Structure formats: C-alpha cells, structure tokens
C-alpha cells in the first residue's frame, strides 16, 4: 500500500511484539488518535504493519500523584504537567495485518515494528482499502482479545469505518462484516448477543 499525504504521525513506538505494540505520544498530539482507529507503522523495508487502537493510557508519576492529592494548583502548573513533562501518553495497538510490496494481509506480520518507529493514523482511503480487503478477516484479531471491552472496541471501530464505506456507495461492507461476526461467534452465544446488541445500537445512531 502507498503512503498518502493525509496520514498523520501520532506517536513513536515504545515497545512491540508481533500481535500488539505500544506507542507514546505527547498530550498535545492526543486530539487525533481515538479508540478503534486504524493506524500503521512503516518499517525500514517499506512494509507496513496495521493495527487498531485498543487502549489510550495516561501515565502518572510521583509528582502527578502529589499534585492530584494536594491543594488546588494554578492552571499554569496543570498545563506544565500536561504539555511539558516527559510522561508519554501510551497508545496500545492491536496488530490486525500488514502490507508488503503493496499486498495486504490480515495475518500477523513476520516481525514486529521497532522502538521509535513512527505511528501514523491511516487516512480515509487507506481505511477503506484495508478493511474491505478479502473477507474482512482482520476482525478475528479483535474477537481474540481477552480482559478488554471487545464490544466497545468493535463499536468504536465500526462507528468510524461504516460511514467511510457508505460515503463511496459501498453499503454491502457493513452487512458483510455483520455476517462475518455472526460466523465467528456462532459457538459463543452470550458474546454474540452482546455484539449484536452493540451493532443494533450503532444502527440506531
């Protein structure tokens, strides 16, 4: 896949493994990334690793804990802690696929990205291309997550992605994805019920 002008750098990698990675960014850069958004990291060999933001974590340290428990602080010092201090916001990303030589795969990449690699937010065209590829197999990575609000992540992802496909007249994408979810969750009735509940909520928005 190709780099587009609209992809926005939102952070740099702190740590990674094949199935997930964590990037750090400053609070000033936090207005762009959102839960469920599709992001990517480009490797030195020009291949790209794709992921979904599963968690955004605001770190603390002993000074922040003191400020929280202490007297009221001036607004200037709140800003100092948010924007000046070296406490990166952590963006946790679930790997959902990769692209090599322009070919997309919804499997895990052979190697994880490296620390300090740049994390980019994918633009609309790229989101459409990646999520419409094949039979939307990337969604299985989300369903594999444990101890995380999978339904909420799905809702956040679909709320961003569904309108992008509808804008280009692709109304079948969402229906196909729902069918995919039903297939994947056919043996897990309680979970399927919750997911369908989230999808219903999404359709009524």
């Amino acid at each position, binding site marked *: 896949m190709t780099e587009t002008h609209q992809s926005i750098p939102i952070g740099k990698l702190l740590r990674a493994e094949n199935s997930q990675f964590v990037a750090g960014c400053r609070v000033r850069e936090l207005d762009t990334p959102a839960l469920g958004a599709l992001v990517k990291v480009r490797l030195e060999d020009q291949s790209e690793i794709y992921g979904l933001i599963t968690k955004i974590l605001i770190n603390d340290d002993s*000074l922040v804990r003191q*400020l929280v428990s*202490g007297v009221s*602080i001036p607004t*200037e*010092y709140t*800003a*100092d802690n*948010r924007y*000046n201090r070296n406490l990166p916001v952590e963006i946790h990303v679930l790997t959902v696929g990769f692209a090599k030589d322009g070919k997309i795969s919804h499997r895990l990449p052979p190697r994880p990205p490296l620390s300090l690699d740049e994390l980019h937010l994918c633009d609309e065209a790229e989101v459409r291309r990646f999520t419409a590829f094949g039979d939307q197999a990337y969604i299985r990575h989300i369903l594999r997550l444990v101890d995380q609000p999978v339904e909420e992540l799905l809702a956040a992802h679909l709320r961003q992605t569904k309108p992008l496909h509808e804008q280009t007249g692709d109304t079948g994408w969402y229906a196909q994805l729902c069918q995919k979810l039903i297939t994947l969750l056919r043996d897990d009735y309680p979970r399927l019920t919750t997911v369908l509940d989230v999808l219903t909520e999404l359709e009524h928005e």
Partner: protein
Amino acid sequence: MPLNFASVEKNASQYIEQAKQWQLESAEKTSQLNDLYQQACQDPERLKQIIELAEESLSSLYTAKPLLESPDSTYPLPAMPAHFTLLAADGSQIVPSRHRALQFGLINVGLFKAQFGSGKTPIIDLVSELIDFTTIFTDDGALISEDDVGLIRDLRERVLIREMITSEDIQPVLTVTDGPLDIFYRSDIQGGKGSQAQKMVFELDQHMQRDQIITAGFIDKPGSAMLHNMLDLFRKAQATAPEVSNNNRIRISDRLLLQNKIPASHRSALFEIVSKRKPASADRLRVAFFYLNVGAQTEQPWLARVEIPYWVAQSPELVNFVHAVLYNDAQVLDSHPYPYALHRAHELAVVRQAEYEEVENLLLSKFEGQIQSFSPRSNKDYWKGQK
C-alpha cells in the same frame, strides 16, 4: 557484596547512645539559647550595636544582624498577587574523573518560567555545556574539584536565569535558585576564583536591581547557626547573660532555634548576613534573609531560609511578594513543601549515569580512532560498572 549487617549491628547501640546524648545536650543548649534570645530581643538596638562592633573588630565572622524588624517578631502570609512571573534555575554537573577514559566536565542547567495569571504553559529549557578542556585542570595540573565545577554551575545558573527574562514577562518578576544567594560558602575554592565569582554575582544583582527583578535563594532544611553565632556575641558583651553550655561542637541551627516560634505560613523577622573572611572582597552581594515556615500546620513546622538581596529587604512590599510567592509555590507540593518551580528546574537538570556515559561515548567517537594518546578507563571504574 551487601553490607555486613552483623558488624553494623555491633556498633549500632553505641552509636545510638552517643546520638541520644548529643540530642540531650542539644536540647539543653537550645533551651539556654532561647532564654538568651529572649533577652537579646528586648533591646534590638543594643544587639545590633554589638554585632556592628564585632564587624569592625573581628577579621572572620559569620553571623546574623537584625534589620529594622524586632528579631522575635513574625509576619503572616501576605496576599498573593494575581499576576507575576516566577523563574527558577537549578543545575547538575559531571565532575572530571581520572578513572574515566576521557576527562571532561559538564554543566546541565534546567530553567523553568511560569507567567501566573496568563494561563499559558510554563516555558522550560535545558542548557548543557561542556566545560572547556583547558578549564578542567588547575594551575598545578590536577583535575578541578567538585567545588570548582559547582562554582561554574552556580554562576551559569545565575547568568542563564537572567537571560531567560524578557520585556514581555508579566511584572513583577521573581527568580529563585536553590541554595545561598551569594557563593561564599564554597570554602574549598582556590585562588581568586571565589572572589571573582562573588564579583560576578554582585554585578549581576546590580543589573537585576536596575531592572527591578527580584532574586531569592531558597535553602531547604538549612543547617547554618548564624543566630547561635549572633547570640554568642551578645552573651560575651553582656555581664548578666544566662549561662550557655560550653560544648562548642554543638551548634544549634537557626532552624532548631526558631521552629516553634514561627507559625505555619509566617516568616521570621529580616536579618542581614554578616560574613567576613580573608581575603575580604569589596564587590560582594549584600544579602538579607528570613526564615519561612512552609508547613501548612502549626504542629509540623518546616523552616526554610529565604535569602534576598539587601535592596529587596528594604522594601516591605517586595518582601511580602517573595514571602507570598515562595510559600504558595511550596504548597503545590504540600506533602513535602518545596517550591514547585525549583523542583521542576531540578527535574530537568538531573544528569543520570546513562547520560554521563552517552556524553563520554559521543566525545570518544569524535576522536575517530586517534584515542591512543589518552589512557583508557581505569580498571577500578570498569569493575564498578559491572553488575
């Protein structure tokens, strides 16, 4: 190897007994000095005269002299101004070591500027400077000491904090550094470096005074015994002064003497630092100070010494400004009250071991293989670095 705790344990009891005895003697001496302090405060003018007489007659002196306020008076927290600028600077350093492959010194100064009332994010800066290669050796070829590097750092802090002030800064402007305002306390400085540095500090303050920029030195948990020294002078001049234990090894710090006299958020009276030593320097900053109880509760007093230039001490309005700003800034970190701005400057400036080694590697890499003229890192230092 960990500590040999059995060996420490063997001596611990004796150590504790000695410490307890020392504390008992200190408490007794504090009580005696309190009586003497009360007596001295009854006639502040006489006390002042005694110190001025000592100033004329003694060649070496380090004591406190009351200014216009009664020495036993305290002053409540003044109102905090809504708009002002607070700057803080703090530095750390790498001291050249003969054990390393390359001898180098580095100064790292953290700067923090907050413009209160603006709502703006404070400005931070970090200035890292290698000390010139020729400067890291003394005249007799030895490496400069930690005190020498500390002196360079203190001077840079004062220069850089001045350079950070702009005409756009919200007035009034208060700059604060950690430690005494003058730098006479670095007793190991050789040659004329000490007096040269004092002259620089003096000239910097003259610029500050011209621009009405207020400077302050904040000394947390101060250990000086200027009031004890002052009371010694008073006692010697009095025929009927109360007796004080003659164990001169026990010096009662001003902090201990005043801690139950200054309520939370109050400050003490103003004093001037009287410091005479040889060689005397004409161009020296005249420094005044007060003790500030930065604690929020009377039951837990925590005294800091705040040093200000003498010209600031002449203006009650400016003294109130320093008092209000530093107390309130320390309350931001109220579990262990210490000015937030200074803490941030320190946080910026700290040089860690990994960074020390990075700088050394950077310098070594620039020799491009021509490093043979330098001796490698010492074996002792190598093994110290192994885990």
